[in-house]
């Protein structure tokens, strides 16, 4: 499904602030893989996701999703194949617009926008059903502005929008980091449900080791723009937080042991 080959991304090339965010990374994901990505600050996790999504162009290498070459396409053209949820709950939705209007924008992802009416009545029925599945009571306030929702509700809505119309891949960029622990668990739980139900190929960046272990069938650990660990299947299922910490130490990723990581144990 995903095939990343020798991707390198350098920020501020040729200046004193030059930083190699991704260093010759290669990674393949099979159809239906759910990969969790962990690593310290500046490890390149979010950069990797943003390079796939087209927020930044890559300096070298190729990125293919389902045999479609993405690395030279602009961000808005890649959106056709990718569902995304961001760390900042404000990023994924248009605050000034209604819940149903946001869903309608997402429903048309990958289609040409025309002068047809922006939201049809029969769509609203579908949205009502989908919103009801979130179990947040949003189905009764579909015309309400998204700006009135809490961070957790907005993330749940963004998640719903990202999974509309079966994207080839779902990219979750620390999408629960800005939420309180209880809401974060709920949104993670919802994400897992969606991923399982739609059999979505997913890459989830997280700061939370527990979540990285609990969810997905494969775990990747990054450090200084490279992949240090890649554990999947049975081996991942048996993995404990202590094992993970030991593996990190062995791999020489001292920076990884930052406060947020330890706190989230």
């Amino acid at each position, binding site marked *: 499904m995903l095939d990343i080959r020798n991707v390198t991304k350098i920020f501020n090339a040729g200046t004193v602030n030059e930083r190699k965010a991704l260093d010759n990374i290669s990674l393949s994901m099979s159809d239906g893989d759910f990969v969790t990505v962990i690593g310290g600050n500046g490890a390149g996790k979010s950069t990797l996701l943003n390079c796939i999504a087209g927020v930044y162009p890559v300096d070298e290498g190729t990125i293919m999703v389902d045999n479609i070459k993405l690395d030279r396409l602009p961000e808005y053209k890649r959106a056709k194949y990718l569902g995304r949820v961001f760390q900042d709950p404000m990023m994924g939705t248009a605050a000034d617009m209604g819940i149903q209007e946001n869903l309608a924008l997402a429903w048309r992802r990958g289609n040409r926008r025309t002068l047809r009416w922006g939201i049809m009545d029969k769509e609203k029925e579908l949205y009502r059903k989908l919103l009801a599945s979130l179990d947040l009571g949003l189905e009764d306030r579909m015309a309400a502005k998204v700006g009135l929702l809490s961070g957790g509700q907005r993330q749940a809505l963004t998640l719903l*929008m990202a999974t509309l119309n079966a994207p080839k891949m779902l990219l979750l960029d620390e999408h629960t980091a800005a939420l309180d622990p209880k809401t974060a668990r709920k949104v993670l739980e919802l994400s897992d449900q969606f991923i399982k139900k739609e059999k979505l190929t997913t890459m989830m960046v997280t700061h939370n080791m527990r979540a990285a272990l609990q969810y997905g069938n494969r775990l990747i650990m990054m450090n200084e723009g490279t992949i240090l660990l890649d554990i999947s299947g049975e081996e991942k299922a048996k993995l404990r937080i202590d094992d993970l910490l030991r593996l990190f130490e062995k791999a020489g990723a001292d920076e990884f042991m930052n406060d947020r990581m330890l706190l989230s144990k």
Partner: protein
Amino acid sequence: MEQVLLGAVSQGLLWAMMTLGVYITYRVLGIADMTAEGSLTMGAAVAAGTISGGGSAYVGVAIAVLAGALAGMMTGLLHTKLRIPALLSGILTMIALYSINLRIMGAANISLLRKITVFAPVQELMGTSKTLSVILLGAVCSILLVTVLYWFFGTEIGSAIRATGTNPHMVRAQGINTDTTIILGLMISNALISFSGSLISQAQNFADLQMGTGAIVIGLASLIIGEVLFGQRHFYTRLLSMALGAITYRIIIALVLKMGMPSDDLKLFTAITVALALSLPRFRELGRTLKKSLRREGAR
């Protein structure tokens, strides 16, 4: 007095189209688009140039609309493709238009006295004065445009433009090219403003190279007045309030002038009004802080 008020209403209705244009850039896209000053004059220049050259007034208006759209496209391209900040892109187009407008007009002003304008047939048909015919045509155009814009911003393309102003990241993540939506919004806005300019020149019987100066501030003043006095939650009434705001602004100006303010001070007056209106949220915030700290003092 009645004449003064009628004059103000007629002017307001023509500036209503301009205010709608400003609304699209300032409120929908979140851009303070200085192109407005140039495109208003360009509308007037194109229409006056066409009419005084013996052409039909309708053709003049049509060309003005197209020219305005082109001006908006220019600003949009500078901003999106060349990554020049929006404000500066607008200023660049505005300055460029000054020369272009002078070329279109061939002189600093064109008189349209005794020429056949778009208002002439209305005047003849209804047997009314010029002012009343301007009010009639202005009202019809304003209501028509409000309706068309309401429909447009409900379509898929229109929704995409609205979302772009709120959250461009989200819009790109939903597969929409934000460059296109920004350019499109600027084109529609400036087409409206140029349309407004073409009607204004025909109503006042002349086009002047300077008539666009301060237009953006007048547009903003009308917009804010409209929002404060008539702004409703529904999108249709919000658009309609732009027209009402433009009329109210003209009535206020007419009254202030009537009360003896020299017309030379008009632009200063407008600028101060807009500055005050734009800073209202800040004043409210300061007031709230003040009240809170006073209450805390009292509790101590």
